[in-house]
Structure formats: C-alpha cells, structure tokens
C-alpha cells in the first residue's frame, strides 16, 4: 500500500479516538439541553472542577488550604492520608451530585421560564464562579492525575499492523480506554433512560415540560438528576483529559472542543453527540494531515467549526436534531 494511504488510515483511526473524547464532553451538554433546554456553558469548568476534586480527595489535600492559611496564618496543606482511586472517584461523584443540587436550588429554580439566552448567560456566570471557587478550594498549580489508567503507545497494535502492513500504527492506550469507558457510559445511560422509572420520567420531561409536570413528574428532581449525570460525565471527561495534561485551568477550555460537535450532531441527540464527535475528530485530523501543511498548520481549532457550519447549512438543526417546525 502506498505510504500516504497508510498514514491517512492512521490519522483517521486516531481521529476517531479523539472524536470519542470530544463526544464525551459533548454528551454532558446534550443531557442538560435535552432535559431543561439550557445550553450549559459551565460544562467545561465542571470537568475541571470534578477533576480537581478527584485529585484533591485522592491526595488528601485540605480544601481551601490557601485561604485558611492566609486568614489564620496556619500552615495546613495535606491530611495525613491518601485515598484509593476508586473511593476518590465515588466521593468526587458525590460532590458533583451535591453541586447539581445546589445549582438547582440556588440558580435554576429562580430562572424557570426565562428565555434561553438568559439561562445560557446564567451558566456562564456559573462558569466564572466555579473557576474562582475551584482555584480557591484546591489551588491553581498543576496537579498530576493518576488513577491507574494505561498510557502510551499500544505495542500490540503497533506490532500487528507492522507485520501486516509494514507500518506500525500508533494508537494511544488511553484512547482505547476512553473509547471503552465512553461505550459503557452510553450503554448505561441508554439502559437507564429506557428501563428505569426515573429514566422514563427524564424522557417525558425532555419531550414536553408541561405535560410531564401535569402527570406528576417532579421537574426539580429531574433537573437535579440530569445535572448530577452531567456532573458525572464531566468527571469522566476530566479524568480522560486530565490524564494527558495534568489537572489545570486549561481543562475548562475543552468545552470549546465540544461546541462544533454539538452543532453538527444536534443539541438534543445523544447519538448525534457521538457521531458528531467522530466526524469532527476525523475531519479535523484529516484536514490537518492533508491540507494543514500547505496553509501553515494549527488548523484544528477553526476547521472543526467550519466543518460543522457546512453541515448546518444543509441541515440547520444538526444531523440528529429535532426538526424545527415554525408556525406564525
């Protein structure tokens, strides 16, 4: 096989893997948008906050240590213990549930019935708040996230493809894990929403708020539920991205990677988020591979948006979005 084709195949495979990571972030957006019509800009910061909390708990950091030291002149930094990864993940998830409850109680409840853009703005305000809050709680230095995920090139694939095609493909172990985790996560979500009482209620709310209210579904409970799930998804995304770069401020910027995915897949569709993620992942990697070197490279940031824009021109509601019916 010609070399260029092999390279393109490798790039495509890696693009698919990157797409899974994008989809993971986009999933959190879709869940909240579906259930409450809120475009949750804070999703990226939630991922950062969840990852910070996870690392903080795991390493036994004292929350607000910096603040406490500044006010009382003490020197506290760490508790004398370390928490095993699994327990830390569970605890971090619990914190995200608490977070969902507080968001519902203090923000969403007061904004019922407001126009979309106001709700969107409220989540931006929330994002600002969480950014400052996360830093005060856990400090703004880079933290190493280690929950025992494998990283680095997968040798088996490298060898197999080398023997077969004469060129070893590079696949990151972390990406393989991320793909498996994403698959499990989505399966669980589908099972949950199809076969449990709360899941059905969730779908009912997504379908029609007022009708759901009239048959006795508690909207407030559903909102807490869906923000909790989104918080958990943010935690998973935070772990996957944080494993690469350490947990730090820039983690919150992954939200920007998810926006074109959402546009392309449609704001209301879970399969849309996944397929959108894959298309964006492959599209931007292939573009950078094929066209990038000719026009100077570093094209991913804007090409994802342009790709989504092209799709939108043909399908203004995204690939899997609900059809927009307009009446006067």
């Amino acid at each position, binding site marked *: 096989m010609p070399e260029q084709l092999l390279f393109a195949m490798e790039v495509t495979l890696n693009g698919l893997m990157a797409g899974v990571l994008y989809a993971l972030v986009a999933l959190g957006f879709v869940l909240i948008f579906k259930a409450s019509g809120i475009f949750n800009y804070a999703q990226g910061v939630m991922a950062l906050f969840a990852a910070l909390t996870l690392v903080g708990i795991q390493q036994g950091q004292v929350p607000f240590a910096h603040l406490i030291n500044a006010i009382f002149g003490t020197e506290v930094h760490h508790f004398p213990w370390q928490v095993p990864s699994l327990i830390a993940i569970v605890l971090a998830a619990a914190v995200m549930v608490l977070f969902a409850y507080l968001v519902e109680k203090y923000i969403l409840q007061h904004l019922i019935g407001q126009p979309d853009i106001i709700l969107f703005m409220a989540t931006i305000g929330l994002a600002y708040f969480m950014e400052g809050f996360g830093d005060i709680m856990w400090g703004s230095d880079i933290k190493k996230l280690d929950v025992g995920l494998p990283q680095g090139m997968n040798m088996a694939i490298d060898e197999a493809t080398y023997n077969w095609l004469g060129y070893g493909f590079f696949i990151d172990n972390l990406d393989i894990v991320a793909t498996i985790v994403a698959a499990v996560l989505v399966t669980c979500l589908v099972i949950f929403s199809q076969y449990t009482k709360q899941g059905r209620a969730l779908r009912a709310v997504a379908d029609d708020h007022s009708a759901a209210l009239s048959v006795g579904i508690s909207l407030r409970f559903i909102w807490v539920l869906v923000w909790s799930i989104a918080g958990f998804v943010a935690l998973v995304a935070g772990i996957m991205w944080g494993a690469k770069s350490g947990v730090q401020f*820039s983690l919150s910027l992954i939200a920007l990677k998810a926006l074109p995915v959402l546009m392309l897949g449609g704001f209301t569709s879970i399969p849309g988020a996944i397929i959108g993620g894959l298309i964006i992942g492959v599209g931007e*990697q292939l573009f950078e591979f094929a066209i990038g070197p000719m026009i100077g490279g*570093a094209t991913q940031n804007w090409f994802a948006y342009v790709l989504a824009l092209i799709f939108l021109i043909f399908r203004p509601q995204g690939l899997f979005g609900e059809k927009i019916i307009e009446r006067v």
Partner: protein
Amino acid sequence: MKYTKLAAASVTALMVATPVLADLVFPSLSYRTGPYAAGGGPYADGFADYFTLVNERDGGIGGVMASVPECETAYNTEKGVECYEATKGLGALAYNPLSTGITYQLIPKVTADDIPLYTPGYGRTSAANGKVFSHVFNFPANYWHGASLAVNHLKDVSGGDLADKKIVLLYHNSAYGKEPIRTLEDLSEKHGFEFLTVPVDHPGQEQKAQWLQIRRERPDFVIMYGWGVMNQVAVQEAANIRFPMENMIGIWWSGGDHDVTPAGDAANGYKAVSFHGVGSDYPVFDDIQKYVVDAGKAAGNGDHIGKAIYNRGVYAAMLLAESARTAQEIHDTADITSSMMRDGMEALEITEERMAELGMPGFGPAFKVSCENHGGPGTGAIQQWDAAAGTWSLITDYGPSDMEIIQPLIEEDSAAYAAENKIEERCN
C-alpha cells in the same frame, strides 16, 4: 449608612493605591490565575522572595528598602496596561511583566515615561540592540540565543555534525512561539540540517495531529517553544510515541518542573535550555529559607525553592537589585529614580566574585551590559530532567550562542522598528 461607608472606603481605595515613599519600588506584574498560572506563580514568588531577603539580610539596597507591589495580570494585556498605570505612580524603578504580549505593549510606553523594562529571556528579542531600544533590557539571553544554544547542543551530541539530520520545531502558535523560526532557518542553512515547523494553537490541549506528524517525519530532534498546558501535553505525547526524551529540547519556558511532573517517569531525560542555575544547591537559598520562609515572609508557601522557574525569578530580581546598586554608585545617591535605574542597568557588570558574594556562585554567566548591547552575552547551558530524583541538573557549561547568525537578525529587526517609529540611533 453601612453602604455609604463601604462606598466611601472603596472610592478611597480606588484613588489612593497606598503610596510607599522612599522605597525602591520593583512592581511585579504577576499572574497566579488563568491558563499560565503554573508558570507565573513560582516566578513571582522567586522575584518577591529575593527582594525580601535583601531587605531582611542586608537592610535593603544601599540602605534603602526595596518594595515589590504585586499586581495580577492573568497574562492578559489589558490587565497588564491597568497594572502598569496603577503601579507607575508608586515610583516604579523597573518593570518585569513576564509576558511577551504585555512587553510589546510597554516598550513604547516605558520609553516615553523613562522607566526601564527588564525582560530576561522573553519579550522583544531585537530589544537587545541598545542603540534603538534605550529603555529595554533583555540580558543575559533571549529567544534567538535559546534557539542557537539548542542547536549547538544538538550538534555536540551528534558528534559535531548536523548535516542530514532533521530537526522539528514544535511551537506555540503566537508571537512568542514564532520568534525562533528565522534563527533556526538561518542555522539550518549554515549547518545543513533539515528544518520543519509544527505549530500548536492555543491552548494546546490536543496535539494528536502534531505528534502523528512528528512520528511520520521521524526527526532526529525536536525543539519546543511552548508555554502553559502545551508543554505538559507535548511531553506526554512525546512519551506516548516513544520519542527519545533526550532528543527533545525545550526553551527555558518549556523547562519548568510542572512541565514534566505530570508525565511522571516517562519524562525522564527531557532537556531544556537555561540561562541560570537550577536546583537549590546555592547558599542564597539557605538564606532565603532562613530569613524569608522561616520568618513567615515568603510570597508563596516556600515549596517552590529550587524549582527552575522560581530560580529564574530570583535571578531576575538579583540582576535588578545589582543594577539598582550600580545606579546608586553612579549617581551617588541611595534614593534613585527610574531614570538613574536605567543608567544603572546599562552599566551593570556581573562578575564571578560578585555572584559568589551574593551566595550564587556560577548561578549565571559573568557579563557586562553596554550602551549598544542590552542583550547580554547570550550564553546558556542545557538542563536535563531526572524523573526519579525529581530535579533538573545542568549537564553542560554556559556555552556561547552563534552571534554570527543572531546579530544581523537583531540589527535588521531593530532597524525596522527604528524606521517605523522614527528613532535615531544612540551610543554613537
């Protein structure tokens, strides 16, 4: 009532930013928040701690206390402007904003306000030409020196010959990252190596495409000009594709401790260019521990001591303090102004003996600043990361960079600036 009081208090706070008189003021435009906080924090700590040490141990510079008012910029140019204006009124002697963007902003402003701007290892490279940039100093080394130093080292490790080698520059796609391209292009002509550039857009969280490209190209060496999250991801991705770490060499801003620790053991052997000493094995750090940290006067919590970026803050503070001392000698007054400070910086001479006296033997090169040359000698060493010990160590001596290539570039770029802004050359 309560509200009026609060309002009145805040208005006074807005108008009077507590003037500290008869102090030597070195404002620290730091950033402890935002995407680059991990680099900004240790630097600002080192900068402040050294001046605190000078105050506590020596009773100030020439008997006058130094003060370091800190102002948070979050690496944002607008906040940088605000900070500059806010601290200017305090009688600032010199600025050190640790941001290339803010530096560009301030170059014309400080020249008009007659305040020196000190940008060690960053900022506008061609400011090394003192004939054009009267108020900007970037000794002892700049980005172009860094590129040349990296190439020199690569030449050494490949047995003195770089012909038919391939070098990739992985750079932050911004003004800062693009700086070394010209130098490396010229060097590639001179040494005959093949040169490729691979940009990474801000913030650099996702570099899969770049590293796949590097893997396909199979370069012998990778030079990195990164900052922020880009560094950590690049080191991790390099480890992922099993690129030999000792063949990857970063500029000093890609050579912080926090850049390599997230990758763990995989980062072992990674190299970076440095223009100052690393580690805490210098007497000055014992003094800092004794007079500053143990006395509870440290800017941070004292755990950055000996880290590469912290040391850079200390080094920058030391050179500024020495410049202030020089200025006091020249003008024969302890209470110097920013204009005298500029003269002091231009007449600065750092010797081995002086550094030893300060408890920093061999911490940086010995050099002398002149009217024409504000850029110092451009020497530097290579540091290497030992993941098991968790420390950097210098593996070479301070070597010279290729001034034959760099000087014409400096002349050319500063001449363009002079023409654009109608500046007449000085020092003639």
